[in-house]
């Protein structure tokens, strides 16, 4: 992949890797991930960084058997959306067999890599 930086997003992934993941929140409590200049819910432009909670719960997941070329060496993998309270994040669930995955599972976020590349990948693992 190229070295092009996606400001906001790359910074967030670096922070998650350091254990200091964050999101932005407006004064009315609406949360979003960067890059963001205006609250989608209320139009506020007063956005402040808040720490991403250490753990969240799996609200939905799928076991992907047919992948895009980037993830063909990873199949089957578990893709999930995790609810961290104020905000939700999408990533791959590792450290648990697909049979054992269920909604409600408590996980923490990490940055790992797909099999075939060294691109950063959002990963969730049971704490």
């Amino acid at each position, binding site marked *: 992949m190229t070295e092009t930086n996606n400001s906001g997003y790359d910074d967030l992934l670096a922070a998650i890797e350091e254990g200091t993941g964050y999101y932005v929140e407006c004064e009315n409590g609406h949360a979003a991930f960067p890059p963001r200049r205006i609250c989608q819910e209320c139009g506020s432009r007063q956005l402040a960084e808040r720490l991403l909670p250490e753990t969240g719960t799996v609200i939905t997941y799928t076991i*992907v*058997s047919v992948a895009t070329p980037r993830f063909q060496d990873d199949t089957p993998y578990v893709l999930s*959306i995790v609810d961290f309270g104020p905000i*939700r994040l999408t*990533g791959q669930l590792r450290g648990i067999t697909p049979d054992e995955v269920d909604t409600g599972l408590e996980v923490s976020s990490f940055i790992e890599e797909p099999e075939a590349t060294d691109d950063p990948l959002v990963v969730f693992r049971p704490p």
Partner: protein
Amino acid sequence: MTAVRIAGASETRFGEHPGRTSRDLFAEAGLGALDDAEVSSNDIEVVYYGNFMGELAEHQGHQGPLMADAVGVNAPALRVESACASSGVALRQALEGIRHGKRDVVLVGGAERMTNMETAAVTDALAIAADDLYEIRAGMTFPAAYALMTRAYFETYGGTREDLGYVAVKNHEHALPNKNAQHRSEITVDEVLEAPMIADPLGLYDACPISDGASALVLVSDDYASANDLDTKIAITGAGQGSDRLSLQGRPTLAQTRATTRAAEAAYKEANIGPDDVDVAEVHDCFTIAEPLALEGLGLYEFGEAIGAARRGETTLHGDLPVNLSGGLKAKGHPVGATGIGQVTTLAKVLNGSHPRSDTVPDATLGIAHNAGGTVASATVHVLEVTQ
């Protein structure tokens, strides 16, 4: 506002045409629509063309003038890209000029060429309708996205893979006499359940096929129809479009599709109708779960109630509300950029009595077409009525 009348409607067979360019597919559909309308290409004032992945499939940008040229039109032309809702969105734009009295004759359509690519490349191309940063880089595919929505729906409202199997079985049955359909074969619920998994809980038979195809409509004003003595008993009386967050993670619920509801409310208001007035519907069933999500978003069912509609027989050709008499995306096929106009083509023919399934709804006078893009981050709804 002036009424917008459908003077001509046409589509290619949806399916595998791996050697045919999209310009050739669109020429077949566009010229078919002009012939159906008995309108000269010289009268077309503007061309709207829906397409999603032409850059990836054919290395082709700047498709508006290319497609106008393909149908012998020298007029302003533009391409509309809204993922799988590309031609639904193109249609909503195309209506505006006639409604506001600025245009009399407009050609609108769409096309997609997909089967010239390997499955992995098509999976990659379709995935870019999702959020590149927060979804694709995490391993999202379109089947995966709908699988995430399926599990969320089951958790919220209940439902089973078997319920979804009945949607696939129904739409395959509907497609049997449709010569433009990709799959004209009956399947069973057991076959759906036993098919290989693509993204659990969705299997191969929960998914629409990969298709090539094109579709087109000739739209005219009342004045033009009268002056040229055209047969235009079908009018588009309402149009609506809605948006939602592009990424699933940004939405408060994955068990409802807000863009569909927003589009439906706008379209119903324009047409001065309610969901109870709908006789027949073509909805965007790219995956089996998408059909109940659409029926609920459209207000045709309460949330949580449409999952069993096909199983109960309510949405079959013999039911009270036949849905996807064409076979839907599931069996008719889904050449992405052609799908939205293909739905309207189907409804126009169902309502004017010239569709092979028209005889199952002889009293139908009002139909709606629901086209969705991505994970329904875009949706359009169009209301068609028999007006003479």
